[in-house]
């Protein structure tokens, strides 16, 4: 009897766990899949390019650093700055929203935004924060790119139609 009860408890536990897992799977499957490929200046940035004017607004900086951390932590430092630069290049580009937040939160633009990695707390002295600062200060290892993707995990076929400028770490960068 006791053995049966134990068996029973195990069985019920498995069922409940299975049920929960099922719910979890169902929940995940309806989550909006991200494109995983796209990642981006404003009038201010262009003016900056021309006059040396401009200052980093703290909200832009935070968002940029979080996006870099979510998208490119573990990449070489150069690659992190390049991801920040792509976001800023988008802000400057005619075909994209005209603010850092507009670009980063554009639906489907960044995997790290769609799956919530952008909200991972930034560690103290995170390299992503330095990379964001450097990108805002003007460093652009991507050489003016507006797209990047990881060729191993990229889901978009269209992205391959973009002319590749260079490869940094695991990412291809393209115009």
């Amino acid at each position, binding site marked *: 009897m006791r053995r049966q009860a134990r068996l029973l408890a195990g069985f019920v536990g498995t069922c409940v766990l299975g049920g929960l897992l099922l719910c979890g799977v169902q929940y995940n499957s309806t989550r909006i899949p991200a494109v995983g490929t796209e990642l981006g200046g404003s009038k201010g940035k262009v003016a900056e390019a021309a006059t040396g004017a401009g200052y980093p607004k703290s909200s832009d900086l935070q968002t940029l650093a979080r996006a870099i951390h979510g998208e490119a932590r573990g990449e070489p430092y150069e690659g992190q700055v390049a991801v920040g630069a792509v976001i800023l290049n988008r802000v400057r580009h005619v075909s994209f929203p005209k603010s850092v937040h507009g670009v980063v939160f554009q639906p489907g*633009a960044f995997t790290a935004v769609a799956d919530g990695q952008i909200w991972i707390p930034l560690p103290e002295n995170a390299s992503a924060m330095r990379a964001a600062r*450097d990108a805002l200060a003007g460093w652009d290892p991507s050489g003016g790119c507006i797209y990047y993707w990881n060729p191993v995990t990229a889901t978009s076929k269209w992205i391959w139609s973009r002319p590749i400028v260079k490869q940094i770490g695991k990412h291809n960068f393209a115009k």
Partner: protein
Amino acid sequence: MSNDLEQHHRSATRGWAVISGFLVLSLLASGAIGYRHYQENRAYQMKAENQYQRAFLDLSNHVENMELDMSKLIVSNSPGQSITRLNEVSRQATQASVELGQLPLASLLLSRTNSFVNQVGDYTGDLAQKKVDLNQPLTDSEVRQLSEVHRQTVFLRDELNKMGNQLSEGTITWIDLERDAQRQEKEGSQPQTAWFSRWVDRVVATVAGQGPETQAPAILSNFQFVESELQKYTPIEYDGKFSEAIKIKPKGLGSGEITQEQALQIAQSFLGPESLQGHTVTVVGEGKAAIPSYGIRVVANDAPDREKITMDISKTGGNVLWMLKDRAPGTPAITKEETPAIAKEFLNRRGLRGFEVTTVEEYQNLAVVTLVPKDGNVTLYPDKIKVRVALDDRDVLGYDASAYLTFHHNRALPAPKLTVAEARVRVSRQLNVIASKLALLGKDNYQEVLCWEFRASKNNEEYLVYINANNGKEERIFRVIDMPNGRFIH
């Protein structure tokens, strides 16, 4: 014995009854949990759907207003009315761009539509400024251009209205579209299989421009149609920052192509032998950006997996475009006030002389010093170089000369037509002028204007006012923003 058997049998039956009871219960429980999740999920989807609907409807409204104001603009006949309408069109276009950016459609799908509204906003904004400067109504050629833009806006408005009607019929949701847009992007522009299009047919309405090869849902193919049609119209001709005509050729690269070996030597002499001891320098690739370059990587011999220094060197002229060292500096040993001298010294040693410091920005035990060269007594703001100094050991951890190499050249600047006193009277009487100098200012469209720069103050705020040295126009006003990490102009 039989009693025993019977008892055993009975207890087994009871056991199975209990098991099945628990099974049913747990199934019910997981079902209930699943249903709750499903409901929650639906609620979140609905929220997202409503956001998308709102963005689309606002987009529709802004484009409708753009059209309306543009038509009034074309028949306006006074500077005042033209300027008001131009600014209104510009504002509506800017708003339309914001809403477009919130639709769940990949930006590659909407790139032409996005560039259209952004260009209209930019063009009309610039034109408004021009009309203010000249105090003129629209010229004939401007009316022609605006009529063309108006034609395109009418097209966009009508298409958006059609899509709005399809959406309000409720046969399709943005959430569906989002999925389909992503599927399309994954599959490229290849035609879908028959079963897929049959499945999709439940939502496909016949829409104008839907080619036989596209069987995507209506709104999606509608946007594709808008994209391809907008491409056929004449682009807006103007010289603003989003103009397609603007392409800058780098002016400061010098001449001659370098080889990989030369790039390596340039990198070594730029970084200096002492910072390269125990390190290996290699050329890792070629960049095909606006300035074609060789990529250089430096690794420590005892840690070859981590890039310590990366830099790009232009193929033309062999200039270092930028350099970054991956190191987080420790506790500062110097203050940021000492960094301008370090930055100047760094440039001097590399043959870049006569630079003046414009700003110093400090963050995370680093200081970024911005320096600009001079042409005689004229400060050349477009030709800036940035030098990133570690506050712990004074090492230069970064260098960015991309602006310098893009803009710097012998400009043969003419003497200013206005004297400093003539320009001075054009500065607001609200301000106390502290200092003045000649400066070359770059505009959004990369044009350059020679200005008298006036550093001035009001109350405790400092400003920079730029008066065109040739015609006295008040070109720009910046405010100096003092922040704990540095002084910025904005």
